């Protein structure tokens, strides 16, 4: 069902919808460049990647998906947490300043994932590294008007649209973008760097038409409603499916490394060749790797690939939701694209559902 969040009568409802022609958008980005680090989807090999751009022509706002999600700009694959000296054992906190950043073209699935990561790193023990970058970043997301490819299942996961989490949100109206303002910072950005205009009645009608037209283009791929996922997972601990997945799984960790909601990490010390100074670094880790749960004494608490796949899907379908009130899977399909042995969330979730319906375990 299409969410009708734009009223036809702007005057009465004070809707913050503005319009930027495509050429004005190009100009807007060009004006941002001297003041912000601007990151957006750019072609990379035969795919796309979120990279810093130097010129607006590098941008591809209509891109299917990227190999890595935009999370790498908040949680880099490898980062220095602090430096130290071994001589007097001192920590030297000298964090590099994150430049003010604008990330453009974030799909709504990734936007949902960023909201989860924001919750993870700001709640409980506050992570200054992630949040430091996050707070310096404005997100300009874009409404998806057609599925990335056959692996997307954002419609099932409820991430085909977003009503928060962005500073500005674009919808492509053909020769212009309708811009929904999400935050004051987004409004200021628009005000300071663009020549946008308030949407006319016709433009709002056009937006409604575009939104209405998009929903049928996305199909449901789960055989059940996503609200049931958590309870399906809860009942699936002993499913024979895990053993089957474990037999196929290469334990290459590609699924988690491309996942926008995965945030597990490892921490290591690196030392310079003076053997005195060094840094403690954090890098992405994966629960799919052999020794992820191995303690120093040698015991591996998740020794089989089957148990590791189970843990991964439990996190995606249940644990993360329980802990953070956001689903751990946003339906982006990246893991399905990356898996060489066709282990996918859709087939896994559907099979678990089927097993429960037929009582086959």
């Amino acid at each position, binding site marked *: 069902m299409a969410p009708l969040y734009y009223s036809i009568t702007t005057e009465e409802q004070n809707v913050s919808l503005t319009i930027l022609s495509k050429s004005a958008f190009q100009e807007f980005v060009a004006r941002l460049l001297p003041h912000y680090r601007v990151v957006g989807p750019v072609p990379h090999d035969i795919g796309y990647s979120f990279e810093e751009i130097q010129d607006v022509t590098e941008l591809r706002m209509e891109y299917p998906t990227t190999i890595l999600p935009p999370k790498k700009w908040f949680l880099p694959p490898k980062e220095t947490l602090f430096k130290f000296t071994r001589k007097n054992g001192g920590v030297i906190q000298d964090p590099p300043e994150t430049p003010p950043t604008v990330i453009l073209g974030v799909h709504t699935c990734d936007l949902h994932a960023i909201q989860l990561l924001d919750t993870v790193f700001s709640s409980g023990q506050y992570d*200054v590294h992630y949040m430091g970058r996050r707070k310096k970043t404005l997100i300009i997301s874009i409404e998806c008007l057609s599925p990335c490819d056959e692996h997307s299942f954002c419609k099932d996961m409820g991430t085909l649209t977003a009503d928060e989490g962005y500073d500005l949100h674009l919808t492509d109206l053909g020769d212009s973008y309708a811009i929904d303002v999400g935050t004051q910072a987004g409004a200021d950005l628009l005000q300071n760097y663009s020549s946008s205009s308030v949407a006319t009645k016709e433009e709002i009608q056009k937006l409604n038409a575009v939104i209405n037209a998009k929903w049928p283009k996305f199909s449901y791929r789960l055989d059940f409603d996503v609200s049931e996922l958590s309870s399906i997972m809860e009942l699936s601990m002993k499913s024979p499916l895990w053993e089957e997945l474990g037999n196929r799984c290469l334990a290459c960790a590609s699924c988690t490394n491309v996942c926008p909601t995965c945030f597990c990490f490892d921490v290591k010390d690196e030392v310079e060749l003076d053997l005195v100074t060094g840094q403690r670094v954090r890098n992405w880790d994966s629960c799919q790797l052999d020794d992820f749960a191995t303690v120093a004494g040698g015991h591996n608490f998740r020794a089989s690939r089957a148990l590791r796949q189970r843990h991964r899907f439990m996190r995606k379908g249940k644990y993360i939701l329980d802990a953070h009130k956001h689903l751990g899977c946003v339906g982006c399909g990246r893991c399905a694209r990356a898996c060489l042995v066709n282990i996918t969330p859709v087939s896994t979730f559907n099979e678990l559902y089927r097993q429960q319906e037929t009582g086959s375990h």
Partner: protein
Amino acid sequence: MVTIASYPQMQTGTIMDRDIYAPGLGTIVNIRPLTSLEKVFTIQLPEGQSLGHRPGQFMEVSVFGIGEAPISISSSPSRSNGTFELCARKVGDVTTALHNLKVGDKVGLRGPFGRGFPYENFRGKDILFAPGGLGLAPLRSLINQVLDERNLYGRVIILYGARNPGELLFKDELKAWSERDDVELMLTVDRGDEAWTGNVGVITTLFKFISIYPRNTVAITCGPPVMYRFVLMEFIGKGISEGNIYLSLERKMKCGVGKCGHCQINNIYACQSGPVFPYKEIKGLEEAL
């Protein structure tokens, strides 16, 4: 701005300007070898700060350049006196480096982390400790806490097992406990030697020697992963209720702050919700035992 971090105080709530991953510093003021593999490090915090820990909690200990490792606190809050003790087995890079340090050297410290033993709730009850091997290290913190306020508790029974006599930890204290009238201590080893005259067998072989009043007994265990199921069966077999059984579980606590994912037991982060758990809380978790 360059700042040298001072020791992070125990804080509650969300602190937005402190780096939760940056250790403060402590100084090693004493090193006591226990066996060929274990040493006890006495560590002093700057400016006489108290660690403010609870028995069962752990620290993340850094040897800069080597890395960071979780080590349980082995001393009791009742004996803190501006210092605390860590008992470390030389088993990985960090603990090997720690074993090479000398008195006066500094280590990086974060913590204390996790949920310890709710010992206030144990007052008035009998306590049955059943540590195995290195599992005595965290339980020693609680045992000494209990012994330092001995009159607040009922019986104190300690069943301790190690692989061989050489691996028994804290032998001087074991001797002192065995000489007390108000502590019932029984030792066992999987394999004895010529000098060993005590019980031979795994820890569960000791249970037949004790009789307890189950309704008023709290039972506590910590040891190698393989031990828990068997000791639990003994506890339950003695009629101790699931709410009165406490387990301290070992996991790979990497960050200590519930983020990095390594210590997860199903949906639970052992570094935050544990390492001490009442059995009834984790009984339903497939990955717990």
